[in-house]
């Protein structure tokens, strides 16, 4: 429980989240054969948003955003970035799964007070999408927990550095593939971009956000992408370790720095693959999304869980 780790983790997550937003716009632009904004464009946007004088709808409108951003930062404290994990003794994956609920709930409360049906439709779609991707996600996480017989995520990362990535181990291969299939739904990129659909429901929950509220919403969006990919990298791609090549530098500052760098590189690779899918696909309707996710990824995840139960 280092003070340095507690301050450094959220800062890294914040910068990476904004970097992901900028990288998304740049790579999408290049795929479209145009130049695109500079990679630090989200920072310019946020500076501009903070200098605008917004309109607020009431007390819960402001508290909801604060709660959702605080919740996201709280999840960051529980996730190991490389070998840094400030609150590692706090209760493991169960607490992460539950604190991840604070983000959407905060946005839902504050958007509800905006008294705009576009917000309500956006939030109802968000919750329906969350219910539908939680079905395979819970099966996958339970398979991982049963395979390693622990609920602590730091323990899972350490075991992967010793015995290879989860994605490569035979019982968890199907679960890994199922996780890749639902990763766009968790991140909110196409084909599952149904929540913040700008053209259909006027950007959904953020329709009444302006000024500082929109700035916080943008940061929240970046953090959510960070958390979604970080969970995947920690559970399936070995966290901040590269086949145990750091065994010689144990417990030095160099190991922490290299661990963080390896972790971030893995996250960027996964995110870029997701962006390529985002560039190609249209937006599914919510019924199509539910029908798709409840058939194929759920089936794969269920079979993966059965395999893990049989093996143990």
């Amino acid at each position, binding site marked *: 429980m280092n003070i340095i780790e507690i301050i450094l983790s959220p800062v890294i997550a914040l910068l990476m989240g904004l970097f992901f937003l900028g990288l998304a*716009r740049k790579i999408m*632009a290049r795929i*479209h*054969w*145009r*130049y*695109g*904004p*500079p990679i630090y*464009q989200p920072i*310019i*946007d946020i*500076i*501009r948003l*903070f*200098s*605008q*004088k*917004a*309109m607020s709808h009431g007390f819960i409108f402001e508290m909801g955003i604060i709660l959702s951003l605080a919740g996201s930062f709280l999840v960051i404290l529980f996730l190991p970035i490389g070998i840094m994990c400030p609150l590692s003794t706090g209760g493991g994956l169960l607490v992460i799964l539950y604190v991840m609920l604070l983000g959407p709930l905060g946005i839902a409360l504050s958007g509800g007070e905006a008294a705009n049906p576009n917000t309500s439709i956006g939030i109802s779609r968000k919750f329906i999408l969350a219910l539908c991707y939680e079905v395979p996600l819970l099966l996958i996480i339970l398979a991982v927990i049963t395979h390693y017989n622990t609920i602590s995520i730091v323990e899972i990362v350490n075991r992967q550095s010793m015995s290879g990535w989860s994605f490569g181990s035979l019982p968890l291969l199907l679960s890994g593939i199922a996780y890749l299939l639902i990763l766009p739904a968790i991140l909110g990129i196409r084909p599952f971009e149904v929540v913040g659909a*700008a*053209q259909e429901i*006027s*950007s959904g929950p*953020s*329709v*009444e*956000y*302006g*000024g500082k509220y*929109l700035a916080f919403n943008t940061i929240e969006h970046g953090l959510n992408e960070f958390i979604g990919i970080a969970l995947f990298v920690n559970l399936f791609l070995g966290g901040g370790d590269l086949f145990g090549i750091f065994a010689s530098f144990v417990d030095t500052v160099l190991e922490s720095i290299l661990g963080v760098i390896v972790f971030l590189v893995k996250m960027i690779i996964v995110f870029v693959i997701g962006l390529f899918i985002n560039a190609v696909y249209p937006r599914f309707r919510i019924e199509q999304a539910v029908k798709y996710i409840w058939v194929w990824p759920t089936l794969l995840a269920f079979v993966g869980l059965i395999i893990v139960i049989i093996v143990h």
Partner: protein
Amino acid sequence: MDRNQIKKWFKSPAKMGHKYSLHAIYFCTGCGIIEIPPSITARWDAERFGVIPVATPRQANLFLITGYVSTKTLKAIIRTYEQMPEPKFTVGFGSCPINGGMYWDSYNTIKKLDKYIPVDGWIAGCMPRPEAVFVAVTHLWTLIDKDMANGYIKYREKYKYYRANQEKVFGTLDWPPLFS
């Protein structure tokens, strides 16, 4: 573009932020909107200037009045303009907002938009090409640099004048005055 000059960022980050992050509200006023999608797509890329369209006025700080303004549209324009957070900039596209343009003798259009909402700059043409859009954006940057893009301040200070003009067109307005 002076996006890379760090000293200017530190001196006044708000101004540089407004310059390089002009989000335009996607309000299709009249026939001029046909020239905006080409300027967003790949051939004339507006995103490299930092200009993207957003869906709602709360998220925007640039209002493009593209094309003629009928009296029915004027109500929507005023409501939308008042819902935008300050500081905000307005640009009139085409000749119709300037002096009525092609519809200079119609009973149903507004001839001088500047009487009802403050406009920071105009682009002549019927319709202006996408290159003209970018000239407008760079001109707006110069105005912001020199603190001359102060339409919103004028609206706040001379609100009685604007409101009187609006009431002359519509009779009583069904929204309360923005500034008391």
